[in-house]
């Protein structure tokens, strides 16, 4: 049952990854089409070329932005597998570190929005903790409405700005 569910989820990711507008994180690490070649370490047998999981659209790790409703810090049910994938990666790679950047739309006052955006990042961090991510692996920065990705003054822009970005400081 779980297997079927996860297959379903994965196909859902592919669908959403194709359908949603691509908004890349601002850490400059995203290079479309970049793959990694595993170097043969002494072994002369041919090695398979695998895609970097962080770049593979089929992999939930390639999705690093979680969106929120107005004045809400609740992670949408369909985004939970994305958070879980990153959480599991962090649990498996104890040296990995992320920065969870919380953001808000421009409505309301600025410092309140900083607090609201921290609450969003904390929701993501709490979910991650359930999957075994250690507290010191995820740092939170609450930017409020100070770093929008869309500059319009309408719901289309606001929905893109209410977000938490998962930014890898080390993998």
């Amino acid at each position, binding site marked *: 049952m779980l297997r079927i569910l996860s297959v379903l989820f994965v196909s859902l990711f592919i669908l959403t990854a194709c359908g949603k507008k691509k908004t890349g994180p601002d850490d400059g690490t995203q290079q479309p089409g970049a793959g990694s070649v595993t170097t043969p370490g002494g072994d002369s047998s041919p090695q398979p070329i695998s895609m970097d999981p962080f770049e593979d659209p089929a992999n939930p790790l390639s999705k690093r932005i979680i969106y929120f409703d107005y004045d809400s810090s609740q992670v949408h049910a369909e985004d939970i597998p994305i958070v879980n994938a990153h959480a599991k990666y962090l649990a498996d790679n104890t040296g990995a570190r992320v920065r969870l950047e919380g953001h808000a739309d421009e409505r*309301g*006052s*600025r*410092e*309140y929005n900083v*607090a*609201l955006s*921290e609450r969003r990042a904390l929701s993501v961090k709490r979910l991650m903790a359930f999957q075994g991510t250690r507290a010191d692996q995820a740092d939170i*920065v*609450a930017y409020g409405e100070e770093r929008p990705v869309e500059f319009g003054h309408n719901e289309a822009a606001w929905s893109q700005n209410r977000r938490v970005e998962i930014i890898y400081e080390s993998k």
Partner: protein
Amino acid sequence: MRLIKFGILILLVTSLPVHAALEIKITQGVGNAMPIAIAPFVVTGSKKPPQVVDEIIKADLKRSGRFKPLEKSEFPQRDVTAENMRLRLWREKGIDYLVVGSVHEEVPGFYKVKFQLFDSGGVKQLAGYTIPADKSSLRMAAHQASDLIYEAILGIRGAFNTRVAYITSGQRGGKKRYIMQIADSDGYNARTILNSPKPLMSPAWSPDNKKIAFVSFEGNRSGVYVQDVLTGQRTKVSARKGINGAPAWSPDGRRLAVTLSNNGNPDIYVIDLGSKKASRLTRNAAIDTEPVWMPDGQSIIFTSDRSGKPQLYKVSAAGGSAQRLTYEGDYNSAPTVSADGKKVAMVSGERGRFRIAVLDMGTGETRVLTDGRLDESPSFAPNGSMIIYATKEGGRSVLAAVSEDGSVRQTLTLKGGEVQEPDWSGFLN
């Protein structure tokens, strides 16, 4: 020929007008503004002063919304001076107040600004002063004259000789920059205090107007800093884990109320600037932020969503339980208190519109002053007459000012950038 060209070039350069960084447009005025005549000041000396003092005074008084400065063509007497004026003629034209004056260059670059304000009805002088100034302080002298005229007629201290701190943001070379600036209250003399690739927020003037507290996100974390305006010297006040935000000076200038979240969620703390020690003021699982001190230093007003939505609360500066202040509307935040402590301006949201409202602390009544959709960051002028705030105009963030009764409104547009988070200084002298 080359020499002539050079000469023309110099002439062009030196005669370029000094542009205001902020352009002020009065969008709504009062019908009962008082007519006042500011006669062109008599200029004596070897060189023309760099500022037209009477024009600055005229613009100041007009901007206040309380006065209607007349054009020269409406004057009953041409080239009027203290010596040749006949007040009866002015009274007959319904012009209650007349200002005459002069700018005398004593030694090159040094001036004496002299002005007299007359009441044509009472046939008497209401104010008369001489203000010394040099080239760089001539605008300031004009603002001081405006303050004295305003006070002599209205009995309230003028707030023209004051400054505004604000944040501008824009793209520079493809990179987003955040710039903290200060400018005179009329938008002139804008200068950059700090320029950062990371967000700058919440500038707050110290009570002595010498320092600005603010929030910076340098190094991908928030921190509260204090910068000396004159020397540029910067000190870190708090860069604890989590939020370090919303700095507010205590009236004695020795402490900052701030928002910290290092204990799990945002609460109000007071940091002693000497010891840098923080003491916790609120203890609540909700968001507590945006503190501001009452002028007596005894209590602090802040925003909290402990009721489910952001509303304003008041707590003793010594701690204890908080008392809710606002009930109207579903979103009240970002308080700012008038110098007499009688009024609290805030961002008030109702049905998705965010406007500036004022709460009367005596009656408990709230009045909405603006009609924007995304108005924010209100800050009182030190005399309580106006509130400066940020609004949207043509999709851009601009500064605007509204009189405390909502009758006068004006916008201040910065060329080529978004302007936000204004904070009005105290009286400079």
